[in-house]
């Protein structure tokens, strides 16, 4: 047996925009084990429900994570609305779907760029992020913010999109679709990219289910599971099939995310076609009392929200289980047996979002 050595990875590392620490156990160049340790971004946001009332907390929920901000706001608002028995107007539900799918596009393009950066393919990174700017500009136009949008509120949404904005959004999506086609070809067909992605970090279907993988990580292993199929919000009126791939390797995860981009374009188009006229929010009276569990599909996978109200304006408890938390055990599994040089790429393929994980 070769001599074992331990290499620390992170918290500050060029490939990671966020701090996570891993102790990699190596035999020569091969990783035989990985011990993750987290806690660098822990702020204690769940306890803030005792200091901010349930309407103010929407702004905190959106700041759990900057990339999935829109989704966290939506999940929290939907959970509170279910506790209070509020019927959200149809138009607001459609607007929420449009904004959440836009943030999925922004998140997946960001991931593709970071993946290219981890592979050392600088120009592909720059190109992906150049295309992503278009969707950020669209966010800026429709919500007033590039990253944190603050559009969700308990009882609906704060801002409306008029017909000219929706038309511009359709045009922007068409532009993005045209611009990413050559990028997609590079990601899926380029020899160099394939040689880094194909066959690395294989997660078998059984392991993925056993270890509780979620989102694109799970779907890349061939499991048809997407929480959007449950039809929460306006998804019940939209047609969608979960994107899957049976490879289970890094390449498969890349394929799933790219296909989801196109799925999001279609969902936005369909939502804009079906959006009804009407109010965008309803007045909220009283305070939440009771508890509720809710699942939604974030760009990174299934997120679970739990809310417990006690009849006052301060909630008793808010709990969030984020997709990256459940993707860390599968990550540790895929790291076993890989080469040291592949570690940054494998960590990226779960699309880690540490600030969600630690809150």
């Amino acid at each position: 047996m070769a001599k074992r050595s331990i290499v620390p990875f992170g918290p500050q590392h060029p490939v990671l925009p966020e701090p996570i620490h891993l102790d990699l156990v190596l035999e020569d160049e091969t990783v035989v084990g990985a011990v993750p340790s987290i806690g660098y971004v822990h702020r204690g946001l769940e306890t803030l429900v005792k200091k901010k009332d349930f309407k103010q907390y929407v702004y905190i929920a959106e700041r759990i994570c900057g990339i999935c901000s829109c989704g966290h706001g939506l999940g929290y608002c939907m959970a509170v609305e279910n506790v209070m028995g509020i019927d959200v107007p149809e138009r607001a539900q459609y607007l929420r779907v449009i904004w959440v799918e836009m943030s999925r596009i922004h998140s997946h393009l960001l991931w593709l760029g970071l993946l290219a950066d981890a592979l050392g393919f600088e120009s592909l990174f720059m190109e992906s992020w150049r295309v992503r700017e278009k969707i950020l500009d669209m966010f800026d136009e429709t919500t007033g913010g590039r990253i944190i949008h603050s559009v969700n509120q308990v009882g609906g949404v704060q801002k409306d999109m008029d017909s000219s904005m929706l038309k511009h959004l359709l045009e922007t999506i068409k532009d993005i679709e045209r611009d990413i086609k050559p990028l997609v070809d590079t990601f899926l067909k380029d020899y160099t990219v394939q040689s880094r992605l194909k066959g690395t970090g294989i997660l078998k279907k059984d392991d993925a289910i056993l270890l509780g993988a979620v989102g694109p990580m799970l779907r890349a292993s061939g499991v048809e599971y997407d929480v959007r199929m449950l039809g929460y919000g306006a998804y019940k009126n939209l047609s969608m099939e979960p994107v899957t791939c049976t490879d289970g390797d890094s390449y498969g995860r890349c394929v799933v995310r790219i296909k989801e981009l196109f799925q999001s374009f279609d969902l936005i188009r369909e939502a804009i076609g079906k959006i009804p006229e009407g109010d965008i929010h309803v007045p909220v009276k009283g305070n939440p009392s009771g508890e509720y569990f809710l699942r939604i599909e974030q760009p990174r996978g299934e997120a679970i929200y739990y809310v417990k109200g006690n009849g006052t304006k301060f909630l008793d408890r808010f709990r969030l289980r984020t997709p990256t938390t459940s993707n860390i055990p599968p990550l540790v599994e895929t790291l076993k047996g890989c080469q040291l040089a592949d570690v940054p790429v494998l960590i990226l393929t779960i699309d880690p979002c540490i600030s969600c994980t630690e809150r």
Partner: protein
Amino acid sequence: MGKVSKSPWLLHYDASSCNGCDIEVLDCLTPKYDIERFGIINTGDPFQADILLITGGVNSQTERVVKQLYSQMPEPKVVVAVGICACTGGVFKECYNIRGGIDTVIPVDVYVPGCAARPEAIIDGVVKALAVLDEKQAVMKTPEEKER
């Protein structure tokens, strides 16, 4: 801003931010904003960095990492606090695990407000940091160097 006397290298660390400012910092490097036109390169190595960009408030875990990164950077060095959390603690100020702004741990030269800080504001902050860097460099010069 006058002539830039140096092509400064930049080190970015997330002290406990929500990610929003981090992706905006990375955004500054990409084609639309392109901070490289000032000769600035994002490096992962504190030993080669001149400007430290920090996002997010400081907690007990990241405190020692921030101090270590700061001490590893060669003089002269400039610290830029990006985002309102890095400046004062922001919305996370009341959290039990947040100390407050970056200035509770290391000296900060430039504050960039905003939640999330916009790329234009970050670039403005970095350009201000360049002026501070020049000042600090001038102070460090020996009398012979000043005569030259």
